[in-house]
């Protein structure tokens, strides 16, 4: 069974290069409550490993990391 998750906030970082997908996500996270979910869209290929590393380092949970065409989608839950 798949549980559909609705994000509390969307960060559209499509077309933005490193480091902006991470920087914009970190900025958005600051105003969210613990447990809130952010959805990030990015086209920067480096962002896949960046978000894995960032989640690991900050303790935020990378729930999902998927790709559709040239767009990467990340779902992250704030710790």
């Amino acid at each position, binding site marked *: 069974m798949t549980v559909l998750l609705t994000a509390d906030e969307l960060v559209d970082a499509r*077309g*933005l*290069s*490193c*480091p*902006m997908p*991470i*920087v*914009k*996500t*970190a*900025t958005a996270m*600051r105003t969210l409550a613990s447990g809130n979910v952010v959805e990030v869209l990015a086209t920067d290929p480096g962002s896949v490993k*960046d978000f894995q*590393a*960032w989640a*690991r*380092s*900050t303790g935020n949970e990378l729930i999902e990391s998927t790709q559709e065409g040239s767009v990467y989608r990340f779902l992250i839950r704030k710790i």
Partner: protein
Amino acid sequence: MNDKQVKDMDEPLNLVLFSGTDDRLNAAVVLAAGAAALGRTVNIFLQYWALDAFRADRIGADHGLAPEAGEAGRTAVDALRAAGQSSWADTLRQAKELGGVDIQACSLSMDLLHITEADLDPLVDGVEGVTAFHLSTGNGPVVFV
């Protein structure tokens, strides 16, 4: 990523900026922003031509590229900017919003360039000498750009 790599984020990232060309400043700022996004403290120490680039009346100007960029480099950089990449100054402002990024002007370089704190962009937090800078670096790396 192993535990040592995760733990090293506790130590500040220290960037000594000497070069004032847009490519090197952008490269340094990307390092700073990435660290700031990881919650890492970043200390930036502005010297010489990097300090000059932070003059309030000049920060948005074209600071050129390193000679090795050549024409091909100029074309590539312009294309990225045209595609919407922020200037290094804007990226640095966004990094500062995350907290933990401190930017100090080297007092020796202030003397060299005959500038005062009032001449500098608000991005610069203050002026310090090399001793204060050394005491701020903790056990983190000191990177010279």
